[in-house]
């Protein structure tokens, strides 16, 4: 039904007043009452069930007699709020009252749909033309420090005299300069592990083959001989990049490399004994000079992958 507000309300062919308001149920969104304003101004609240017929937009017919009509309660306005003052989701969508449309004239210049479409498309096109040329410079701007050539410098990390037992991990802490972008060179602390390997362990590490190290162009920069006794391991756990330790545990009284993060365990040859690590410890390019100084290239590989992918 679409009663027009201000429609006349009739009871038994007698006009009792005009509809001035309607009351809507906030949950069902259905009209629950119509408010009929009598000629002298009193507003009565008539249940929707009393509406017998909507004759037309000007008239509705109520079931009650004029005598019964004046029994309906007077509207108590302070028990209601207008729909402007309250937020009821989707009220307008479901409201069975059509308040009608209020029209304003469309300016002459705006008449003609194709031109509007043209302007919409042009707006999008110009926006795209502004944004597109920015993509590449912005990306390059942000990517500037992401890829760097490998650092193949040798660092002296300590003296080999420290490694006085075979097949035991010895930690060498060293400090290296680290130059980044505009920053002054900073000294950062790192560590590696060195094992004096028996021939059996050498065999386990190198499997009889010399290990070659490459720069970013693919040229060989250093070769670890398969029979060299001192083996250096990168301090970075190949699982997810934490720092591991040499530990003696109940199950491994001779000692193992143990990473405290995700509990990967490696033997003295760097092989994974337990835990989630995907590959053995990373062997570093290492040389021992005549004075017994241990020198390494501070190579770093990506953690968490089966193959060594060099990062630094």
């Amino acid at each position, binding site marked *: 039904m679409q009663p027009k507000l201000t429609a006349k309300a009739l009871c038994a062919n007698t006009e009792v007043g005009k509809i001035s308001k309607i009351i809507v149920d906030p949950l069902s969104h259905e009209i629950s009452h119509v408010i009929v304003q009598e000629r002298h101004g009193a507003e009565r609240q008539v249940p929707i069930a009393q509406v017998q017929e909507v004759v037309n937009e000007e008239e509705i017919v109520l079931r009650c007699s004029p005598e019964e009509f004046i029994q309906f309660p007077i509207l108590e306005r302070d028990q209601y709020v207008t729909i402007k003052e309250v937020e009821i989701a989707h009220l307008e969508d479901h409201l069975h009252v059509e308040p009608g449309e209020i029209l304003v004239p469309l300016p002459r210049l705006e008449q003609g749909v194709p031109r509007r479409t043209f302007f919409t498309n042009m707006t999008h096109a110009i926006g795209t033309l502004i944004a597109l040329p920015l993509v590449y410079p912005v990306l390059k701007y942000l990517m500037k420090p992401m890829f760097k050539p490998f650092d193949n410098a040798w660092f002296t990390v300590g003296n080999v005299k420290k490694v006085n037992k075979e097949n035991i991990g010895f930690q060498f802490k060293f400090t290296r300069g680290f130059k980044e972008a505009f*920053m002054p060179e900073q000294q950062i602390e790192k560590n590696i592990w060195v094992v004096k390997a028996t021939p059996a362990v050498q065999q386990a590490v190198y499997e009889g083959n010399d290990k070659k190290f490459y720069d970013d162009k693919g040229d060989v920069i250093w070769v670890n001989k398969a029979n060299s006794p001192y083996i250096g391991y990168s301090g970075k756990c190949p699982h997810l990049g934490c720092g591991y330790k040499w530990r003696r545990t109940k199950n491994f009284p001779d000692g193992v490399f143990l990473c*405290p993060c995700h509990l990967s365990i490696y033997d003295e040859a760097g092989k994974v004994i*337990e835990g*989630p690590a995907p590959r053995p410890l990373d062997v570093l390019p290492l040389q021992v000079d005549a004075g017994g100084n241990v020198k390494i290239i501070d190579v770093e590989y990506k*953690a968490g992958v089966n193959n060594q992918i060099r990062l630094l």
Partner: protein
Amino acid sequence: MKEDSQVASQQNAFEKVVEFVDERVGLKNIQAKMLNEPIPGGSRWAYAFGSVLLFIFILQVVTGILLMFYYVPSTDHAYASTQYIIHEVDYGWFLLSYHFWGSSAMVVMVFAHMSQVFLWGAYKKPRELVWLVGLALFGIVMGFGFTGYLLPWDQRAYWATVVGVEIMDKTPIVGDFLARFLKGGPTPGQMTLSRFFVIHVMVLPAALAGLAGLHIFLFRKAGPAGPFRGSPEELKAKTDYFFPRQIWKDIVAMATVFLIICSLAFIEPVVLLEQATPDPGDYHPEPEWYFLFLFQLLRLKIFGGEFGQFLGAMAIPGAFMAFLAALPFLDTSSERNIFKRPVALIGWTVIMVFILVFTVSAIINRHFLD
């Protein structure tokens, strides 16, 4: 006209200003619409989580801005400036500790909020978009935790980031780019700190503010779901507006959370470890407590190796988030009562138990390592 001027002369200056603004902005209608939102079945304490989250976020913004008055995001000053905030600046320790514990409170509340919406079945039609935007907000809150954790530049900060970024590196196809992009290079350093800083203080707050606004708009558009039990007549009889009863409950909940965060800041103020360096020394790296279950999960042998790790760190969490996003479209029954949705109830319980067990076992493992 005469009457109008009489009315105007009866107003005081403040009322005149309000009148002036209202005439131009429609302030009173906006206020009425904001406060007069019918809540089917009436206000409840259980509905306070969302408001509390907004409150925590606002205070995180305030304390975060205050911290930036002294903090310097560079590898040679981040640690020293944070120590300065803690030890030298008046009440610096409190603001930093509040910010720290506020982040934990945020995660707890997000959890509570999501659980409530899930258990109440409030993600169902017509609230699918509210749920989806909520999931994005959840991701942003996690991003806040991850990026903010690095900023003090101590060992804890450094190693959580090293491991976190290595995990992101395992994203299919874009992983390597993403990890290098976040690190700003092959290894963590100044560029990482700069990037995390700008993400933490600019990108994420803007994203969160925008999406939280959208979240609330969509929520208001769809209307509150109300309880999952009760006939329309009962719900109607108990209905009240957002103001005053729900706002009262919200403000009490906010005050309670505020007091808890303050207490934690007093009892356990932030203490930094050694300055960050690629040598962990005696420190056993660990992420923030709400990532512990994932950390513990990755210790399992089945999530070892390249593929296992991808499974545990990427595929399973990713699939779980995708499942949550698809949930309102998969679960199309209109039944909202959690006691009539056994799969949902069991699923939620299993996940909670899983998170609890893995978090506790990560904590127990600490003793084993020492």
